[in-house]
């Protein structure tokens, strides 16, 4: 353990009034806006209190293992479906006899199709598997983009402070002044327009860019807050006293401490991005139809909800369990690091 545990934490002591202001403002805004439309990250901020602390060394609970298992299962299926290793059938082949039939449909099930078919008679099973690939690809791609840009900017803002911080924070706030779903919708619609009918950018890429851009200020602000508190710690001062350059301190001292907390945010953010993909699909700007994604499967067969609810419900349940697992894992990761931060 590099830092001395008995010195207390630099976050409370010696903060100038200006920083106090920033803290208050951040605290309030953070709770209000950071969450984005799914309202998940807010709870992160709230639940980081001592109550969510889990005892160190007690191991992961049953829930955590179930969440890990579910995520492993989904990722495995998605990758296998993408690679074409799964021999569950073609995701785009139509069987007229099976159209709209499934376990819950009015007409009754179709034999040979475990989960039934969609309105075009395409087998749900391979579509859901391939849809998992698309949804996860878009979500992780967007979050990665958000972290590369937003994370770096937030790290720099929190570490360097001063004018640069003011400018970057101002930029984040301006970007957040449009409701996130509306912003993403506008970006997708216009990127689609810009890339034309044939498309210079693939529909998945457009979604990744749009959701990623929306994520930049959200992630940036969280990273900034974390980076700000770590930058005031004693070991940073010690490193500076030894003559280390700012960039070295930022990368070698601050970044490794910021990363663990960011990992839990990333898990939550992927969940939010999966939901965002679904919402955008319902608004008509999702992945283009022949390619299945969980979102556009719901959007396409929304009109058949009353007659053949299985189509919508199957994709919905997958989204729900995946987001639930990601939230749960995010919570577990945060709780693990909370212990390190506040339990000394």
């Amino acid at each position, binding site marked *: 353990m590099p830092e001395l545990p008995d010195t207390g934490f630099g976050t409370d002591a010696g903060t100038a*009034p200006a920083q*106090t*202001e920033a803290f*208050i*403002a951040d605290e*309030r*805004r953070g*709770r*209000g*806006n950071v*969450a*984005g*439309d*799914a*309202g*998940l990250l*807010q*709870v992160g901020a*709230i*639940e980081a*209190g001592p*109550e969510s602390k889990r005892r160190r060394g007690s191991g992961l609970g049953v829930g955590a293992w179930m969440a890990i298992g579910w995520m492993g299962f989904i990722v495995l299926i998605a990758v296998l479906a993408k690679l074409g290793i799964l021999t569950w059938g073609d995701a785009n082949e139509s069987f007229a006899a099976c159209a709209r039939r499934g376990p819950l449909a009015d007409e009754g099930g179709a034999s040979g199709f475990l989960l039934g078919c969609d309105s075009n008679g395409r087998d749900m099973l391979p579509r859901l598997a391939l849809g998992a690939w698309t949804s996860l690809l878009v979500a992780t791609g967007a979050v990665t983009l958000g972290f590369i840009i937003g994370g770096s900017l937030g790290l720099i803002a929190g570490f360097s402070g001063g004018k640069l911080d003011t400018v970057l924070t101002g930029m984040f*706030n*301006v970007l957040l*002044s*449009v*409701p*996130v*779903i*509306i912003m993403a*919708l*506008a970006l997708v*619609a*216009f990127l689609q*327009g*810009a890339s*034309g009918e044939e498309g210079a950018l693939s529909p998945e890429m457009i979604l990744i860019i749009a959701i990623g851009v929306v994520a930049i200020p959200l992630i940036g602000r969280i990273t900034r807050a974390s980076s700000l508190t770590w930058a005031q710690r004693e070991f940073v001062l010690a490193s500076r006293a030894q003559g280390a350059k700012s960039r070295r301190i930022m990368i070698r001292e601050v970044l490794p401490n910021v990363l663990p907390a960011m990992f839990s945010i990333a898990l939550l953010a992927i*969940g939010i991005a999966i*939901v965002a993909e*679904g*919402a955008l699909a*319902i*608004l*008509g*700007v999702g992945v283009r139809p022949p390619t299945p994604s969980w979102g556009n499967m*719901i959007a396409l067969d*929304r009109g058949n*909800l*009353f007659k053949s*609810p299985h189509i*919508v*419900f199957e994709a*919905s349940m997958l*989204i*729900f369990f995946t*987001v*639930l697992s*990601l*939230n749960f894992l995010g*919570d577990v990761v945060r709780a693990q690091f909370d212990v390190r931060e506040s339990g000394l």
Partner: protein
Amino acid sequence: MELTRTVAKRVVQLVIVLLFVTMFTFLLIRLLPGDPTTTIIPFGTDAQRAVLRQDLGLDKPLYEQYADYLTNLLQGDLGKQYNSGRPVADLVTQSLPVSLQLMIYAQFIALFFAIPLGIFTAYRAGTRSDKAINTTGFALLALPNFVLALFLSYFVGAQLKWLPTGGYAPGWMDQFFDSSRTPDLWEHARTLLLPAFTLAVGQIAVYMRLLRSDMIATLQENFITMAKAKGISNQRILWRHALRPSSLTLLTVAGLNVGTLIGGAVVIEVIYGIPGMGLKIYQAVFSKEYVELQSYVVVIAVLFVLVNFFVDFLYSVLDPRIRRARAS
């Protein structure tokens, strides 16, 4: 003095943000590559294109276009639908009150459930019922609002047939925007109950947890011990003594949550077929009416910025600690 300075500073910030937001929506259309008119109205005739080119002022320099755009916005000219020729401003006055009412109801429903639940879980913190409620809340957070909307319209709407799964009847607010729309409050309530509830569910979990954590802190204060020592009943302590000092964060978040509600409302309106801004946006995307879409985005963004400004402002007026921190 202190207050005027705070206000002045906030107003300057507001103006800057509004300039950036309008610039963003302005650039959305202008940055389309090639001839923007072919993208904006792909189904349009040459005559319609010529009109659009003139409307957008594409032959002028960019800064002049932006100045024109701002002037038009300030005069309430939001452009028009190129397929029908209808002014977008008319469509906004029709659909905006619908969305606003939906959001207000959702907010009330959310607080109606969240406040008692928050108080109860704080009072019973750590017990089995607290954990059960919290776990349910956690699960609800993972439930996307469109999934809930589809579930409710299937089970409550189609299977149980308790409530309609779509449609809309004018409520109390519509007549202020368009006097010809007479309110039909019964139908209005019936059609909006499911959507408002759907929108509220996601918020309930958030609000409940907020209130719970603030309330737990308040319940450890000395004045609560004092009240207990005086023999005041638990009910009265919780509702009369502890709720008010614990509710500041909750109310702020509820105010600042308007953005979340707008985003949620857009999706929910599409699913339940409610003719609010969300459905209009969906239709604009579908028929590739980029000018119309741009106007909806700017209207929502400006409203959102203004609401946030007023909530923030009210908050700093109400809470002296924030005011002082800001001023220093």
